[in-house]
């Protein structure tokens, strides 16, 4: 079945998944109803929606070409900000602050965005121009205005997407971006308890880390993880040094004191007193589990980190962390 660009059947539906099986990307569309992207992560928002039997049982499917054609007719709301991060450093809180304002659509680590950004690894021959076109089409479809107050889209990316910062800047030229990072030992401690996907060999190409494939054999997970995190931070630092438009660096420790002002300034939020109250409310919650109040775990993390995690943090991460701090302080 073909879905033309003006197909009214897709009104109120959004791409929930892109699959790359069989050599041609397919787009699966979910009916969102009144579900807004307010959960800490994109897939949690979809999980909520899929509790409705209609959304679970009935999904449209289109080709990527259909999605791209539709994007030309319906580009969606403007993308006003990109949030990059090294992981475990407050980026979910930043996404939740942005999502606290009903005029924003915040796409937090959206699966379809990740699939498109890594499509060239699964489908040889995919060009950067194609990835950019697909990325804009996916974000445009997810960023359709479904509520009258919605005005802008923010992308909170997966940690490894900072390696694609130049491509994302080409896709969304002039859009302000932020890179978040945190004291290395605390980040390593967080991953020690529950490792992120990028901290295990397999997700990222060894070449992206400056390693030969064989070099991974026998490498302790702590060393691998620290090298990944260092690579992400180096990409953020390089992107910042080479920035063509508005960009900021933000250390986790500064979010509580500087976060709201920085977001407001960088992304032009123009906060009303009511907005400021909403941000305060979001900041007081645990970003990844908003039913709980926020609890600062900095001291706990430093206390519980293993010796090897600490050593790897110091060896691989400390230098780039200090370079980021120096760059941030230079302004």
């Amino acid at each position, binding site marked *: 079945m073909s879905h033309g660009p003006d197909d009214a*059947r897709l009104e109120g539906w959004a791409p929930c*998944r892109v699959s790359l099986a069989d050599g041609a990307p397919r787009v699966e569309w979910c009916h969102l109803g009144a579900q807004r992207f307010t959960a800490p992560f994109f*897939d949690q928002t979809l999980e909520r929606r899929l509790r409705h*039997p*209609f959304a*679970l*049982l*009935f999904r*449209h499917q289109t080709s990527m070409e259909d999605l791209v054609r539709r994007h030309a007719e319906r580009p969606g709301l403007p993308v006003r900000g990109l949030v990059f991060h090294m992981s475990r450093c407050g980026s979910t809180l930043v996404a939740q602050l942005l999502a606290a304002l009903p005029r924003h659509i915040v796409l937090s680590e959206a699966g379809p965005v990740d699939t498109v950004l890594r499509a060239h690894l699964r489908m040889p021959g995919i060009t950067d121009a194609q990835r950019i076109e697909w990325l804009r089409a996916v974000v445009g479809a997810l960023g359709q205005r479904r509520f009258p107050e919605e005005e802008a889209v923010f992308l909170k990316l997966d940690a490894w997407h900072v390696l694609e910062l130049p491509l994302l800047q080409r896709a969304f030229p002039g859009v302000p971006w932020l890179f978040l990072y945190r004291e290395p030992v605390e980040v390593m401690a967080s991953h020690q308890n529950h490792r992120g996907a990028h901290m295990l060999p397999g997700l990222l190409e060894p070449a992206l880390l400056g390693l030969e494939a064989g070099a991974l054999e026998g490498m302790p997970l702590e060393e691998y993880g620290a090298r990944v995190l260092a690579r992400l931070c180096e990409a953020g630092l390089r992107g910042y040094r080479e920035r063509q438009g508005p960009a900021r660096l933000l250390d986790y420790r500064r979010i509580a004191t500087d976060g709201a002002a920085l977001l407001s300034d960088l992304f032009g939020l123009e906060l009303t007193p009511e907005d400021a109250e909403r941000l305060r409310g979001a900041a007081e919650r645990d970003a990844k589990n908003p039913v709980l109040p926020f609890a600062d775990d900095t001291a706990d993390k430093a206390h519980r980190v293993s010796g090897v995690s600490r050593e790897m943090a110091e060896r691989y991460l400390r230098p780039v962390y200090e370079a980021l701090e120096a760059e941030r302080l230079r302004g």
Partner: protein
Amino acid sequence: MPLEDFERFRRLVLEDVTLQEALKATADVPAFLALARRLGAERGCHFTEEELRETMRAARRTWLESWI
């Protein structure tokens, strides 16, 4: 075949906004299953409540597996 009947019903629903509106408005699972069975039967698509529940379980499994 019941599964084929449901697939036929699924295609009909995706093409018919009026059918969609009725189903979207029913979030309660038992009420949704009864409505889907009735709307399906009116169109010659016959499936049991248990078959629908199994289709939902399979849809959920497929969804979750895609994130692994």
